[in-house]
Protein backbone atom coordinates (compact mmCIF):
# COMPACT_ATOMS: atom_id res chain seq x y z
CA UNK A 1 0.00 0.00 0.00
CA UNK A 2 1.32 3.43 -0.97
CA UNK A 3 0.28 6.58 0.83
CA UNK A 4 0.54 10.30 0.34
CA UNK A 5 -0.58 13.21 2.49
CA UNK A 6 -1.11 16.66 1.03
CA UNK A 7 -2.08 19.87 2.79
CA UNK A 8 -3.82 22.17 0.30
CA UNK A 9 -2.36 25.69 0.73
CA UNK A 10 -5.07 27.70 2.49
CA UNK A 11 -7.24 24.59 2.48
CA UNK A 12 -7.56 21.18 4.04
CA UNK A 13 -5.59 17.98 4.39
CA UNK A 14 -6.01 15.18 1.83
CA UNK A 15 -4.70 11.65 2.09
CA UNK A 16 -4.62 8.92 -0.53
CA UNK A 17 -3.95 5.25 0.08
CA UNK A 18 -3.52 3.30 -3.11
CA UNK A 19 -2.61 -0.19 -4.22
CA UNK A 20 -1.73 -1.04 -7.80
CA UNK A 21 -1.62 -4.49 -9.32
CA UNK A 22 -0.58 -5.10 -12.92
CA UNK A 23 -0.78 -1.38 -13.79
CA UNK A 24 -4.34 -1.17 -12.51
CA UNK A 25 -5.74 0.43 -9.38
CA UNK A 26 -6.74 -2.35 -7.02
CA UNK A 27 -7.49 -0.28 -3.91
CA UNK A 28 -8.02 3.44 -3.40
CA UNK A 29 -9.10 5.34 -0.30
CA UNK A 30 -9.27 9.13 -0.08
CA UNK A 31 -9.62 10.74 3.32
CA UNK A 32 -9.20 14.13 4.95
CA UNK A 33 -10.79 17.05 6.76
CA UNK A 34 -12.24 18.71 3.63
CA UNK A 35 -15.94 19.31 3.01
CA UNK A 36 -17.85 17.70 0.13
CA UNK A 37 -21.51 17.51 -0.81
CA UNK A 38 -23.07 15.17 -1.61
CA UNK A 39 -20.71 13.18 0.57
CA UNK A 40 -21.42 9.95 -1.34
CA UNK A 41 -19.54 11.36 -4.34
CA UNK A 42 -16.21 10.50 -2.72
CA UNK A 43 -17.07 6.81 -2.40
CA UNK A 44 -18.39 6.79 -5.94
CA UNK A 45 -15.19 8.37 -7.27
CA UNK A 46 -13.11 5.71 -5.50
CA UNK A 47 -15.32 2.97 -6.93
CA UNK A 48 -15.09 4.42 -10.41
CA UNK A 49 -11.30 4.55 -10.36
CA UNK A 50 -10.96 0.94 -9.26
CA UNK A 51 -9.68 -1.13 -12.17
CA UNK A 52 -8.54 2.00 -14.04
CA UNK A 53 -5.00 2.23 -15.35
CA UNK A 54 -2.67 3.80 -12.80
CA UNK A 55 -1.61 6.48 -15.26
CA UNK A 56 -1.37 10.04 -13.85
CA UNK A 57 -2.65 11.83 -16.97
CA UNK A 58 -5.68 9.54 -17.17
CA UNK A 59 -6.40 9.84 -13.47
CA UNK A 60 -6.25 13.61 -13.62
CA UNK A 61 -8.82 13.74 -16.43
CA UNK A 62 -11.05 11.11 -14.80
CA UNK A 63 -11.11 12.89 -11.43
CA UNK A 64 -11.79 16.33 -12.88
CA UNK A 65 -14.48 14.98 -15.22
CA UNK A 66 -16.17 13.12 -12.40
CA UNK A 67 -16.54 16.14 -10.14
CA UNK A 68 -17.52 18.46 -12.99
CA UNK A 69 -20.21 16.06 -14.21
CA UNK A 70 -21.56 15.61 -10.68
CA UNK A 71 -21.37 19.32 -9.87
CA UNK A 72 -19.90 18.21 -6.53
CA UNK A 73 -19.59 21.06 -4.05
CA UNK A 74 -16.40 21.16 -2.03
CA UNK A 75 -14.54 23.42 0.36
CA UNK A 76 -10.89 23.19 1.35
CA UNK A 77 -9.91 21.13 -1.69
CA UNK A 78 -10.46 21.19 -5.47
CA UNK A 79 -10.80 18.41 -8.06
CA UNK A 80 -7.17 19.15 -9.06
CA UNK A 81 -6.08 18.58 -5.45
CA UNK A 82 -7.72 15.14 -5.40
CA UNK A 83 -6.01 14.22 -8.67
CA UNK A 84 -2.72 15.51 -7.25
CA UNK A 85 -2.86 13.48 -4.04
CA UNK A 86 -3.74 10.28 -5.93
CA UNK A 87 -0.91 10.77 -8.40
CA UNK A 88 1.60 11.61 -5.68
CA UNK A 89 0.58 8.46 -3.83
CA UNK A 90 1.25 6.47 -7.01
CA UNK A 91 4.81 7.85 -7.07
CA UNK A 92 5.35 7.32 -3.35
Amino acid sequence: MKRFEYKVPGGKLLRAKIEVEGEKIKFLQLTGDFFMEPETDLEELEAQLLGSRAEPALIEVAVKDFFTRRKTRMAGASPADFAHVINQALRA
Partner: protein
Amino acid sequence: MPNPFRFLDLKVNDAYTNMAMDEAMTKARGEGKVPDTLRFYMWKPSAVTLGYFLSVEDEVNPEALNRFGFNLNRRISGGGAVLNSEKGEITYSVVLKEDDPRVSTDPVESYHYLCQGIVEALDVLGIKAEFKPINDVIVAGKKVSGNAQIRRYGAVLHHGTLLVDFDAREMFGVLKISKEKLSDKMIQQAEDRVTTIRRLLGRQISFPEVRDALEEGYRRALDAELVEGELTPYEEALVKQFRTRYASREWIHRR
Protein backbone atom coordinates in the same frame (compact mmCIF):
# COMPACT_ATOMS: atom_id res chain seq x y z
CA MET B 1 -38.43 42.10 12.79
CA PRO B 2 -36.32 39.52 14.65
CA ASN B 3 -36.12 36.03 13.20
CA PRO B 4 -37.94 33.43 15.31
CA PHE B 5 -35.90 30.38 16.30
CA ARG B 6 -36.82 27.34 18.30
CA PHE B 7 -34.22 27.15 21.07
CA LEU B 8 -33.16 23.82 22.55
CA ASP B 9 -31.23 24.71 25.69
CA LEU B 10 -28.07 23.06 26.95
CA LYS B 11 -28.48 19.33 27.57
CA VAL B 12 -26.00 16.52 28.04
CA ASN B 13 -26.18 13.37 25.92
CA ASP B 14 -23.82 10.75 24.60
CA ALA B 15 -22.14 11.22 21.21
CA TYR B 16 -24.50 9.03 19.21
CA THR B 17 -27.64 10.70 20.55
CA ASN B 18 -26.13 14.15 19.97
CA MET B 19 -25.34 13.42 16.33
CA ALA B 20 -28.72 11.71 15.82
CA MET B 21 -30.46 14.80 17.23
CA ASP B 22 -28.65 17.13 14.83
CA GLU B 23 -29.58 14.93 11.88
CA ALA B 24 -33.21 14.55 13.04
CA MET B 25 -33.58 18.34 13.35
CA THR B 26 -32.06 18.77 9.89
CA LYS B 27 -34.48 16.31 8.29
CA ALA B 28 -37.50 17.75 10.09
CA ARG B 29 -36.47 21.30 9.11
CA GLY B 30 -35.99 20.34 5.47
CA GLU B 31 -39.45 18.79 5.46
CA GLY B 32 -40.91 21.96 6.92
CA LYS B 33 -42.09 20.19 10.07
CA VAL B 34 -40.15 22.36 12.52
CA PRO B 35 -38.96 25.98 12.58
CA ASP B 36 -35.37 27.22 12.33
CA THR B 37 -33.58 25.84 15.36
CA LEU B 38 -30.66 26.71 17.62
CA ARG B 39 -29.45 24.01 19.97
CA PHE B 40 -26.76 23.96 22.70
CA TYR B 41 -25.41 20.65 23.95
CA MET B 42 -22.67 18.83 25.81
CA TRP B 43 -21.28 15.31 25.77
CA LYS B 44 -21.02 12.52 28.30
CA PRO B 45 -18.88 10.54 28.07
CA SER B 46 -16.33 12.61 26.14
CA ALA B 47 -15.99 11.51 22.53
CA VAL B 48 -13.64 11.84 19.62
CA THR B 49 -15.78 12.94 16.69
CA LEU B 50 -14.45 12.39 13.19
CA GLY B 51 -15.43 14.38 10.14
CA TYR B 52 -17.23 12.20 7.60
CA PHE B 53 -14.19 11.76 5.32
CA LEU B 54 -11.57 10.92 7.96
CA SER B 55 -10.23 7.47 8.62
CA VAL B 56 -10.06 6.12 12.15
CA GLU B 57 -6.50 4.83 11.85
CA ASP B 58 -5.15 8.21 10.71
CA GLU B 59 -6.79 10.23 13.47
CA VAL B 60 -7.19 8.22 16.64
CA ASN B 61 -4.96 6.48 19.16
CA PRO B 62 -7.18 3.53 20.13
CA GLU B 63 -5.15 2.74 23.23
CA ALA B 64 -5.58 6.25 24.66
CA LEU B 65 -9.25 6.27 23.69
CA ASN B 66 -9.81 3.11 25.72
CA ARG B 67 -7.69 4.30 28.61
CA PHE B 68 -9.75 7.50 28.94
CA GLY B 69 -13.04 5.69 28.32
CA PHE B 70 -14.07 8.02 25.48
CA ASN B 71 -16.54 7.19 22.73
CA LEU B 72 -15.60 7.24 19.06
CA ASN B 73 -18.08 8.90 16.77
CA ARG B 74 -18.44 10.06 13.15
CA ARG B 75 -20.40 13.08 11.91
CA ILE B 76 -22.37 13.35 8.67
CA SER B 77 -20.50 16.60 8.05
CA GLY B 78 -16.92 16.84 6.83
CA GLY B 79 -14.07 18.61 8.59
CA GLY B 80 -11.55 17.63 11.21
CA ALA B 81 -11.39 15.36 14.22
CA VAL B 82 -12.32 16.93 17.54
CA LEU B 83 -12.34 15.84 21.13
CA ASN B 84 -15.79 16.66 22.44
CA SER B 85 -14.77 16.79 26.06
CA GLU B 86 -17.42 16.58 28.75
CA LYS B 87 -15.32 18.93 30.86
CA GLY B 88 -14.09 21.42 28.33
CA GLU B 89 -16.50 22.64 25.70
CA ILE B 90 -19.98 23.59 24.66
CA THR B 91 -21.28 22.51 21.26
CA TYR B 92 -24.07 24.10 19.30
CA SER B 93 -26.04 23.53 16.15
CA VAL B 94 -28.05 25.82 13.91
CA VAL B 95 -30.53 24.39 11.41
CA LEU B 96 -32.07 26.49 8.64
CA LYS B 97 -33.79 25.76 5.34
CA GLU B 98 -31.25 25.21 2.59
CA ASP B 99 -32.83 27.94 0.43
CA ASP B 100 -32.88 30.45 3.30
CA PRO B 101 -31.72 33.74 1.73
CA ARG B 102 -29.55 34.43 4.81
CA VAL B 103 -27.37 31.44 3.99
CA SER B 104 -25.07 31.81 0.99
CA THR B 105 -24.51 28.91 -1.38
CA ASP B 106 -20.83 29.87 -1.18
CA PRO B 107 -19.36 27.70 1.59
CA VAL B 108 -17.01 30.29 3.08
CA GLU B 109 -19.71 32.99 3.19
CA SER B 110 -22.12 30.54 4.73
CA TYR B 111 -19.58 29.59 7.43
CA HIS B 112 -18.84 33.25 8.01
CA TYR B 113 -22.51 34.03 8.62
CA LEU B 114 -23.18 31.11 10.93
CA CYS B 115 -19.88 31.46 12.86
CA GLN B 116 -20.78 35.05 13.72
CA GLY B 117 -22.78 33.85 16.74
CA ILE B 118 -19.53 32.57 18.25
CA VAL B 119 -17.66 35.78 17.48
CA GLU B 120 -20.48 37.72 19.19
CA ALA B 121 -20.60 35.31 22.14
CA LEU B 122 -16.89 35.86 22.73
CA ASP B 123 -17.45 39.61 22.44
CA VAL B 124 -20.02 39.32 25.24
CA LEU B 125 -17.23 37.77 27.35
CA GLY B 126 -14.85 40.60 26.42
CA ILE B 127 -12.80 38.56 23.96
CA LYS B 128 -12.08 39.91 20.49
CA ALA B 129 -12.42 37.01 18.06
CA GLU B 130 -12.65 36.74 14.31
CA PHE B 131 -13.86 34.27 11.70
CA LYS B 132 -11.04 32.53 9.90
CA PRO B 133 -11.93 30.81 6.65
CA ILE B 134 -12.83 28.13 6.04
CA ASN B 135 -14.54 27.12 9.24
CA ASP B 136 -12.76 28.39 12.34
CA VAL B 137 -13.12 31.17 14.88
CA ILE B 138 -9.77 32.41 16.16
CA VAL B 139 -8.43 34.73 18.83
CA ALA B 140 -4.99 36.23 18.24
CA GLY B 141 -4.25 33.52 15.69
CA LYS B 142 -5.32 30.59 17.84
CA LYS B 143 -8.39 28.48 17.21
CA VAL B 144 -11.08 28.57 19.86
CA SER B 145 -13.96 27.16 17.79
CA GLY B 146 -14.21 24.70 14.90
CA ASN B 147 -17.32 24.31 12.77
CA ALA B 148 -18.81 22.03 10.14
CA GLN B 149 -21.78 22.34 7.81
CA ILE B 150 -23.75 20.00 5.68
CA ARG B 151 -26.70 20.51 3.35
CA ARG B 152 -29.02 17.55 3.51
CA TYR B 153 -32.77 16.89 3.37
CA GLY B 154 -33.35 20.43 2.03
CA ALA B 155 -31.84 22.02 5.12
CA VAL B 156 -28.44 23.27 6.21
CA LEU B 157 -26.94 22.03 9.46
CA HIS B 158 -24.15 24.08 11.02
CA HIS B 159 -22.58 22.57 14.11
CA GLY B 160 -19.46 23.39 16.01
CA THR B 161 -17.60 23.48 19.26
CA LEU B 162 -16.43 26.28 21.52
CA LEU B 163 -13.44 25.40 23.70
CA VAL B 164 -13.93 26.42 27.32
CA ASP B 165 -11.12 24.48 28.94
CA PHE B 166 -8.56 22.13 27.65
CA ASP B 167 -6.68 19.08 28.81
CA ALA B 168 -3.70 18.76 26.47
CA ARG B 169 -2.90 15.32 27.85
CA GLU B 170 -6.36 14.10 26.83
CA MET B 171 -6.61 15.90 23.51
CA PHE B 172 -3.17 15.04 22.19
CA GLY B 173 -3.35 11.61 23.77
CA VAL B 174 -6.35 10.55 21.72
CA LEU B 175 -5.89 12.60 18.53
CA LYS B 176 -3.04 12.04 16.09
CA ILE B 177 -1.95 15.40 14.74
CA SER B 178 -0.70 15.41 11.17
CA LYS B 179 2.88 16.56 10.61
CA GLU B 180 1.85 18.04 7.25
CA LYS B 181 -0.77 20.17 8.90
CA LEU B 182 1.64 21.45 11.51
CA SER B 183 4.41 22.23 9.06
CA ASP B 184 2.02 24.25 6.92
CA LYS B 185 1.21 26.47 9.83
CA MET B 186 4.86 26.57 10.81
CA ILE B 187 4.09 25.78 14.36
CA GLN B 188 6.09 23.24 16.26
CA GLN B 189 3.74 22.53 19.08
CA ALA B 190 0.28 21.28 18.34
CA GLU B 191 -0.84 22.86 21.57
CA ASP B 192 0.01 26.32 20.26
CA ARG B 193 -2.71 26.08 17.63
CA VAL B 194 -5.65 26.16 20.01
CA THR B 195 -6.78 28.24 22.92
CA THR B 196 -9.72 28.26 25.32
CA ILE B 197 -12.04 30.78 26.92
CA ARG B 198 -10.51 30.03 30.30
CA ARG B 199 -7.00 30.80 29.05
CA LEU B 200 -8.12 33.93 27.24
CA LEU B 201 -9.87 35.30 30.31
CA GLY B 202 -7.21 34.06 32.71
CA ARG B 203 -9.87 32.88 35.13
CA GLN B 204 -12.26 30.04 35.79
CA ILE B 205 -15.52 30.37 33.94
CA SER B 206 -18.63 28.29 34.50
CA PHE B 207 -20.59 26.55 31.77
CA PRO B 208 -23.73 28.57 32.58
CA GLU B 209 -21.77 31.77 31.98
CA VAL B 210 -20.56 30.51 28.60
CA ARG B 211 -24.05 29.31 27.75
CA ASP B 212 -25.49 32.74 28.51
CA ALA B 213 -22.88 34.39 26.31
CA LEU B 214 -23.65 31.96 23.48
CA GLU B 215 -27.35 32.68 23.73
CA GLU B 216 -26.73 36.42 23.57
CA GLY B 217 -24.16 35.97 20.79
CA TYR B 218 -26.54 34.05 18.55
CA ARG B 219 -29.39 36.40 19.35
CA ARG B 220 -27.26 39.28 18.05
CA ALA B 221 -25.66 37.51 15.10
CA LEU B 222 -28.86 36.02 13.69
CA ASP B 223 -31.13 38.80 14.93
CA ALA B 224 -32.91 35.90 16.55
CA GLU B 225 -35.91 35.76 18.79
CA LEU B 226 -35.27 32.55 20.72
CA VAL B 227 -38.34 30.58 21.78
CA GLU B 228 -37.56 27.72 24.13
CA GLY B 229 -38.77 24.43 22.73
CA GLU B 230 -38.18 20.71 22.56
CA LEU B 231 -37.80 18.06 19.91
CA THR B 232 -41.13 17.02 18.37
CA PRO B 233 -42.31 13.40 18.65
CA TYR B 234 -41.44 13.03 14.95
CA GLU B 235 -37.85 14.13 15.66
CA GLU B 236 -37.65 11.89 18.74
CA ALA B 237 -38.59 8.92 16.55
CA LEU B 238 -35.89 9.91 14.05
CA VAL B 239 -33.33 10.22 16.85
CA LYS B 240 -33.97 6.61 17.86
CA GLN B 241 -33.61 5.44 14.29
CA PHE B 242 -30.47 7.50 13.51
CA ARG B 243 -28.79 6.75 16.83
CA THR B 244 -28.57 3.07 15.91
CA ARG B 245 -26.61 4.01 12.79
CA TYR B 246 -24.30 6.46 14.60
CA ALA B 247 -23.46 3.87 17.25
CA SER B 248 -22.79 1.10 14.74
CA ARG B 249 -19.30 -0.18 14.06
CA GLU B 250 -20.03 -0.06 10.35
CA TRP B 251 -20.68 3.70 10.46
CA ILE B 252 -17.82 4.62 12.79
CA HIS B 253 -15.23 2.54 10.96
CA ARG B 254 -16.42 3.20 7.44
CA ARG B 255 -13.05 4.82 6.68
